[in-house]
């Protein structure tokens, strides 16, 4: 059999760090980085006698995420202790949620191959992050507890994902949603968005699931896709040979492009879950749900629908713009400043995005941004009213970016305004036609030669001639 004979079954667990100021159960900073063990306090270090107190900001983030994903929000739920021994886990248990997650059901919506698509969710729950072990040298390890107690939302999908590409797009959509809601930065490289994949294969048409392997350590969308693709091939090869897939955790090694066995699940821990006695039940009121629902921002798929409405953008352009809320926000601001949407989309996608390496810099109120939305709208409007030619506009934009000058200022100071004055252009056209009698004679038989004359006139005007006006004059003079 080949890979195509198997159905791929993928379920994803995405951990999203919530960008709260303090930790989920204590007061030290939840910010990324910092000198090791400086973002700590007695509670997140699990010192004896200390107690967790829930940070409601983390709950608010989880509820907003749940509402955005269409989940059912539990009005009352509990935290549970999940026990295992590891040096980066200060209490010997992680405070998580077990049988009472804060959100049930829901779905993540995105487009796959241009078509609307959704992946159903099992649940979203809140938990605390662990610290980090740092293996310094043989036999020497350090532990940094800065991350211990940073709030996490774990988003668990149903095992409904059928390809590596779908998995990667799903993760991209989760990241986009998290960033739209402003509840996290979704940075996979820094680990503020982490993804584990449960992958199994079954012969097409089979009802029962195959044995799954859990893949960890995929810290980019590309990793997600590559790791799952590799894992699918690995399992297909095993099954073809009549061997069985071991239930285990495997680590993706991006350098070697393979997954490697980390530990066997069969000998894995019994987590001995029980309700966290130090925290009373978590209650979310109807009023809070109403308020959060009313305050939800426009979500990616709603934005997509708005952009692609009648007379709107192509699905491709709309897809690029909605990928990040900062890009979409920037685009919206350009349009709000008076630029026509299609032209604005072209400029944002082809010129702005080509120059921005850090998407969050596009925040439209970022004073450090080289060309803000209103400056871009001004440039576009100069093209629209014929003041600036499309060709020159690209150079003007480049200078706006590097010199931080406005389009109007550059056009005026550099004399870049388009020459649309009929008499002046006519004068130049006549001169050019007269200088090229042979070509003029052949225009009747080869109409393409008109382009030669337009180019020559344009050169004469220093690129400032209005191409349409030049074209019209030349056609008249050459009788074509």
């Amino acid at each position, binding site marked *: 059999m080949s890979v195509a004979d198997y159905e791929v079954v993928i379920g994803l667990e995405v951990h999203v760090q919530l960008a709260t100021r303090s930790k989920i159960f204590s007061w030290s900073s939840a910010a990324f980085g910092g000198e090791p063990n400086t973002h700590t306090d*007695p509670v997140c*270090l*699990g*010192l*004896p*006698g*200390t*107690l*967790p*107190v*829930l940070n409601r900001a983390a709950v608010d983030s989880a509820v907003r995420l749940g509402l955005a994903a269409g989940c059912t929000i539990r009005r009352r739920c509990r935290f549970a*202790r999940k*026990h295992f*021994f590891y*040096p980066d886990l*200060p*209490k*010997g*248990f992680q405070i998580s949620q077990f049988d009472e997650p804060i959100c049930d059901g829901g779905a993540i919506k995105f487009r796959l191959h241009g078509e609307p698509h959704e992946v159903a969710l099992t649940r979203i729950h809140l938990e605390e992050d662990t610290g980090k072990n740092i293996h310094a040298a043989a036999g020497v390890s350090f*532990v940094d507890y800065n991350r211990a107690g940073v709030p996490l939302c774990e988003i668990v999908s149903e095992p409904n994902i059928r390809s590596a590409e779908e998995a990667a797009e799903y993760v991209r959509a989760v990241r986009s949603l998290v960033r739209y809601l402003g509840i996290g930065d979704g940075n996979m490289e820094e680990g503020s968005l982490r993804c584990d994949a449960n992958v199994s294969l079954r012969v097409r048409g089979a009802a029962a699931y195959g044995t799954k392997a859990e893949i960890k350590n995929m810290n980019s969308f590309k990793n997600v896709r590559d790791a799952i693709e590799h894992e699918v091939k690995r399992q297909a090869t095993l099954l073809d040979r009549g061997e069985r897939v071991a239930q285990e955790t495997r680590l993706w090694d991006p350098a070697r492009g393979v997954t490697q066995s980390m530990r066997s699940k069969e000998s894995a821990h*019994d*987590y*001995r*879950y*029980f309700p966290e*006695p*130090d*925290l*009373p039940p978590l209650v979310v009121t109807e009023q809070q749900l109403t308020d959060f629902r009313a305050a939800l921002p426009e979500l990616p798929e709603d934005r997509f629908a708005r952009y692609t409405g009648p007379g709107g953008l192509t699905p491709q352009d709309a897809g690029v713009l909605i990928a990040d809320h900062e890009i979409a926000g920037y685009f919206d601001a350009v349009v709000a400043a008076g630029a026509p949407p299609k032209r604005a989309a072209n400029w944002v996608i082809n010129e702005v995005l080509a120059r921005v390496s850090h998407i969050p810099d596009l925040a439209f109120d970022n004073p450090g941004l080289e060309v803000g939305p209103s400056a871009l709208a001004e440039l576009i409007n100069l093209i629209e009213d014929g003041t600036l030619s499309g060709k020159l506009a690209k150079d003007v934009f480049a200078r706006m970016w590097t010199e931080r000058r406005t389009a109007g200022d550059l056009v005026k100071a550099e004399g870049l305004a388009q020459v649309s004055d009929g008499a002046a252009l006519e004068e130049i056209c006549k001169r050019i036609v007269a200088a090229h009698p042979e070509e003029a004679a052949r225009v009747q038989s080869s109409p393409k030669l008109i382009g030669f004359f337009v180019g020559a006139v344009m050169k004469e005007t220093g690129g400032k001639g209005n191409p349409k006006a030049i074209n019209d004059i030349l056609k008249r003079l050459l009788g074509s």
Partner: protein
Amino acid sequence: MIDVRGLTALAVADGVRVGKWRARDVVEPYLDRIAQLDGALGCYLRVDADGARRQADAVDAACKGGRDPGPLAGIPLGIKDIFCTRGVETTCASKILRGFVPPYESTVTARLGAAGAVALGKLNMDEFAMGSSTENSAFQPTRNPWSPAHVPGGSSGGSAAAVAASLCAGATGTDTGGSIRQPAALCGVVGVKPTYGRVSRYGVIAFASSLDHPGPFGRTVEDAAALLEVMSGLDPLDATSIPQPVGGYRQAARSGREGLAGVRLGVPQEYFQPGMDPEVETAVRAAIDELARAGAQIVPVSLPHTKYAIATYYLICTAEASSNLARYDGVRYGHRAEQVRSLEELYTHTRGEGFGAEPKRRIMLGAYVLRAGYYEAYYGKALRARRKIADDFSAAFAACDAIVTPTSPVPAFKFGERTADPLAMYLADVYTVAPDLAGIPALSQPCGLTRAGLPIGLQTIGPALGEEICFRVAGAFEARTDWHTRLPPEPAL
């Protein structure tokens, strides 16, 4: 020098507040007594003489400067070694925490200190508060001041013995299954377990989180009331602490002197069963008669699920203990095993060397109770039984205002008498665990002595947040009897 033997905590504070004596003049004789007598008793694991003098001097400076030194001005307290004290080693009487110096203060000790109390040092206890005799301390036995051959009870045995022997004027304790009331009864002092959440657990090293109740020990009912008033109240650092205003406990204790007219006292038949020491039964029945003479109406009540209390308690407390004690892994603080070859060995050796037999037993029981697939059969069922036990009390309090029972079925037992049989030791908690499971307040006070001269305790149980009725009943009994004035013999030097 002031003779502090038998001195009440409030007498100390009143003296300091009116300028009769300085706090420092009270602290010194206590420190002297500890130096002279505690070698024989073993109440203290650590004496912080310098810290105590510093705090006393601060109280005296406040008085001298015309500032209010606080309601507990100059009261020398012993602190159970389960309370974290900033800068002072806190071990929970366990080798695994030897050398642990907390960088923070428990809410209870912080509040006591802010009210002018002076901490003399850290008191012995059963390791991680697991036990009923203080024999499970990893460091030393504590002797009952009334008879050195007998245990002081536990787990707050050091606290009860120190108050009884006047090695402090009051003490802190914690009660998970009776660990304040049982040693209070066995040492002839007053001990109070308040409503769950009334006193913050922040900085109190956890044994069984849903059952741990910090509370006070005093020589008199009003001493204990005064300490509890200061210890109580909402704490933003403990999510299970409760916001209701703190009652007037001292006032309630004093009001008992006016008698108990209109008060209905329930006597549960289930608490007078075979196995009770006859001398205990006689003394407790006499005490109930005395309360009737004070004007209380005695009504029979039934707590039918009492027979499940011990089993329920040991399922819940072991489960929670196995979880709470998981953090002692040798990575960050306390004991760490030497010469280990792997992470696995670091854990197993550290915990194997650091924990005593009782914590190990409870960790194993608790891990068993919580193992996957058996949650409902054990922990889930225990939670349902716990609800039934609480419902019993709610039903009983429809017919009475407070319930009176013996605190312990037996007076103090001898060292080693029960250590060989953990189950027999667990049964020592038979009358005290139910109020812990229900989270309701209960108080123990002295109500007699056996012919052998060992104290007997009377327990008063109130409804949730009914501390005041407990103090009123206890205050009435104390006003009509003199058991609280009896002092144990001075230890032989």
